């Protein structure tokens, strides 16, 4: 991945393929904790098309973004695992 870009996931730098969604970048790095459900369960993408809202993460400090609908950008900060 010579043309990889960097995003920051939970304060850790991750090199990811450009053009993919945030959901893809996380899953391809074996990152399965997207959000915590109201009773604390770990949740990750289900529908892949913006319907189910299970993949909500915080992107650049804006909470509740659908990771499956946002394309990664260099320097993007992604925070996962919060209550949503």
């Amino acid at each position, binding site marked *: 991945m010579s043309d990889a870009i960097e995003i920051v996931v939970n304060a850790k730098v991750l090199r990811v393929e450009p053009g993919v969604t945030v959901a893809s970048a996380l899953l391809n790095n074996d990152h399965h904790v997207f959000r915590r459900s109201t009773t604390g369960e770990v949740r990750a993408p289900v529908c*892949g098309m913006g319907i189910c809202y299970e993949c*909500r993460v915080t992107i650049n400090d804006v909470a509740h973004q659908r990771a499956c609908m946002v394309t990664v950008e260099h320097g993007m900060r992604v925070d996962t695992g919060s209550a949503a």
Partner: protein
Amino acid sequence: MSKTRQVVVIGGGPAGIAAASAAAESGARVTMIDEGPAPGGQIWRPAVHSHPPLAAQRWIVRLNATQADVLRSTSVVDIERRNDRFVVVAESSGNGREVVADAIVLATGARERFLPFPGWTLPNVVGVGGAQALAKNGVSFRGKRIVIAGSGPLLLPVAAYLARGGAKVLAVAEQAPLANVARFAASLWRRPRTLAQAIGLRSAFARTRFSTGTWVAGARGDSTVKEVTLTDGRSTRTLACDVLCAAFGLVPNTELARLLACDVVGGAVRTDDAQMTTIAAVYCCGEPTGIGGVDLALVEGEIAGFAAAGVGPSEHLAARRAVHRREAASLERAFALRPELLSLAGAETIVCRCEDVRWGAIDQRWSARQAKLYTRLGMGACQGRVCGAALECLLGWPADSVRVPTQPARSRTLIGVSLANHQPNEQGAS
């Protein structure tokens, strides 16, 4: 000549592309609003760094040849009626905008139907189309052991797609009985191209076990899904896997139609010969009028686009639509859901994933609204799109009412441009 008609097409799948093209070619000023990063919708979604499928390219070329304005990665969150016109409120990257329309074409597509079973909330339990969408958006399933268990004509194409991407598809389980699936397969003889596709698909994962009359009984795992149990009602088998794809057909996206008070019967938006809904100047085409597939969506889209632009009907298109509608009806019968699927959830199984409402918390004598108020069922961010469609099957509960915002939206988007720069000074009598 009268003033140019402003047509807003919502949705950029086949129906939306056809509608936008037809309307723009007929002289309307067209804005197509789509949630995806590029037109194509779910079925024509291009993979990252790749082109849309060949079938799509002809249509996308046609769309690009028009003056239609395409708003990408943009979600419609409200349509407000103002006198004879509509104000469509949309949001992109957190920024709101409003588009005025004389006519609306709803081409909002469909979503997958998910049914609750033990373990369905584990990470890596995804939809069938969901897995394909994730793959096309860059998820690598290379080397992953995948079980596909659900229903509908999507199972085999997705299995083939994932297998071509290097996944090990261990099993494909179709809940419909063999007789139904065979009848559906036989009907493909009438469409040789589709049959050739189906045969091609099968060869891509020739060693995969394809079972009919088989469905998922449960999944287990810890941080992600680790194994799935399939059953045919008599025996069960448990497979270790990395990913489970489980979805049971498609559900029309009718939220915007219902927001506009269009008649929706049996989950499908009612339309007339010109694809107009029961609300004047609101047209609907493709899956929201009843699951029918891409060919029907294209025809309905064209008819809707022409009509929205004020052009009369074409007999040729109407005839093609009739043919595709018959095919759609046979599809629906073939993949009817078996009753066993409606009792997979145990008392502890979560039904509403947004609010973690468990099956055992729901009293079946309640109304849907009562369940919502008493348990928070359907109160979360997906606005009941997942649990609502499931409970419609499980308990016959009708879909909840639809209000603004039709999907979560920043409050600043709802405040809108009209007031954004206005200095408020109001309280009470001021």
